[in-house]
């Protein structure tokens, strides 16, 4: 069984909500990513979404755009991202890692190479922001062959018919984008999210995880009441940005921020 499925099965048994942090690989420099990942796990992360830096992150707000810029200043490429996951796996063979990013770096490397190297590094799932299931025909079988799960987004604007298609293709968990906008946008409407998740639950047994707009313990707990998992990105990445001149000290801050969310979720 894939690590993602294992983790969600265990959480379900324990009646707990998944906590899924996102950081961009190579931000603020490739030297720190693995220690940040371990810190996130210590603070209670269930799955780690690791961003592949891209020069033109169209679905992201300024916080993650700048994270990509910092990572790209060090020329962080997919080969480096794979190396980071391999290094992480030397100490952590349990926590699922999902690579999240845009298609072009993957397309440039080539789908077969990407799938093979990601699997060898110990990646468990892949979420390509600008690749809806309709465009995934070519890469999907390659990911499957290497036991990598394809994770897809569902948005408030997704029609029920589309949602059914996405659910049919999705694996691991569904990433529900809680609001119209880019990452790091304003606060979210939990009641509206709840209604949307009800619709999705009728379509799929996949765990439903909610991202966008979760910034602290309170918002995590509110979403945690209605979702199977909460995804937090910009709130963590903005700490990395603030501390990019003193990256060692950020490790403790990430633990504090994520730890508060863990506590709020488990309370």
């Amino acid at each position: 069984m894939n690590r993602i499925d294992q983790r969600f099965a265990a959480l379900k048994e324990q009646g707990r909500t998944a906590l899924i942090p996102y950081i961009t690989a190579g931000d603020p420099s490739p030297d720190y990513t693995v220690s940040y990942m371990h810190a996130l796990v210590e603070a209670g992360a269930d799955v780690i979404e690791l961003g592949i830096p891209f020069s033109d992150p169209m679905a992201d707000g300024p916080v993650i755009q700048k994270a990509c810029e910092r990572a790209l200043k060090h020329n962080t490429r997919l080969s480096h991202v794979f190396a980071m996951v391999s290094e992480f796996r030397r100490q952590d063979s349990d926590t699922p890692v999902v690579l999240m990013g845009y298609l072009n770096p993957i397309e440039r490397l080539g789908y077969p190479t990407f799938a093979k190297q990601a699997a060898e590094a110990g990646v468990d799932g892949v979420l390509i922001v600008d690749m809806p299931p309709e465009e995934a025909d070519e890469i999907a079988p390659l990911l499957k062959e290497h036991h990598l799960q394809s994770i897809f987004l569902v948005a408030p604007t997704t029609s029920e018919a589309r949602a059914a298609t996405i659910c049919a293709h999705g694996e691991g968990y569904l990433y529900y984008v809680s609001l119209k906008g880019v990452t790091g946008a304003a606060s979210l409407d939990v009641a509206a999210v709840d209604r949307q998740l009800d619709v999705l639950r009728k379509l799929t047994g996949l765990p439903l995880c909610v991202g966008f707009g979760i910034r602290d313990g309170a918002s995590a707990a509110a979403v945690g009441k209605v979702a199977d998992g909460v995804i937090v990105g910009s709130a963590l990445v903005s700490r990395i940005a603030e501390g990019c001149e003193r990256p060692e000290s950020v490790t403790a801050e990430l633990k504090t921020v994520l730890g508060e969310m863990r506590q709020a979720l488990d309370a």
Partner: protein
Amino acid sequence: MTKFSDLTRLPDDRGHFGPYGGRFVSETLSFALEELEKTYLSLRDDPDFQAKFDYDLAHYVGRPSPLYHAERWSSHLGGAQIWLKREDLNHTGAHKVNNTIGQALLAKKGGKPRVIAETGAGQHGVATATVAARLGLKCDIYMGAEDVERQKLNVYRMHLLGANVIPVESGSRTLKDAMNEALRDWVTNVDDTFYIIGTVAGPHPYPMLVRDFNAVVGREARRQSLEQIGRLPDALVACVGGGSNAMGLFYPFVEDEDVRMYGVEAGGDGVETGRHAAPLTANAPRGVLHGNRTYLMSDEGGQITDTHSISAGLDYPGVGPEHALWKDVGRVEYVAANDDKVLEAFRELTRMEGIMPALESAHALAHAKVLAPTMRPDQHIVVNLSGRGDKDILTVAKIDGVNF
């Protein structure tokens, strides 16, 4: 049936032109694109919609635009006869308005009170601000900060038209970054906002509908050639950034196998220097950006590389997906014109014909200058003079060492 007849049946129902095109967007936009596609397909063959579009093109834009025989320049070059398709004479001064008129009708049909657009040289921004003013729509234009600087006149034109110009400071601060920011706006305000994309790129159905709205250029040029030359031209030449004016001119001639076509990209300092915006000529790899797969300038890690061109309107690392396919099947020959040759052509046409071309269009002229002397005087070249050069006077003055 000709060898190229299949090309007129594209894109397929998922927006693909062979391996190119498609709809590579984050999920939030999928619904809006599906709706737009449905709206467009229902209106495309609706005589009422077409009549409205044609009326606006005739009475607001001033179509048909003339096909002008540049006799003096032709005899100076000493070869083929050069004919200029005068898109510079359109209202707002470029071909861009053909498309914004069409998309504004779609926005109105969809009941959207706000439109947004990206712009490079500012011509598409001006054309969008113009139709927004006419229809009373709120209008925000995203423009790279570097382009805001080099196209000040167009920025103020947009301001006078009531549009809000938002300078984009991220990335290379040019057209691609403006498009990123417009997409971010659209994903946030998709309920009340229509995104008027200015070129034959972006997610399906944009490449198709921008092509269709601009194809009036080629339909007119074809008819005018038959009337004025007495036959079809031997060659067509147009500049290619995203490729909307070239697509507009070329598309109605696609099945006319004897008509050669040349798409002229921005060679910048020279394709061999790496400082250019010529993905097709430079054999850039395939890639995905702004919702479609195409030939795309990127480094080995898949990061989009910086482009360079004297003309803001061509300063883009990709190209419309249909052009990518036309390169593969050999229907169009793609070449590049370097900045110095472009300036030479700009000055020559201005002095010899009294027509000041946009620096974008001067790329097409620069290639016509190369092509014409290789042909006979009884052969004919139609060049798309896609826009007028008033907006570029400051840029050229600066090169001449003149500051106002």
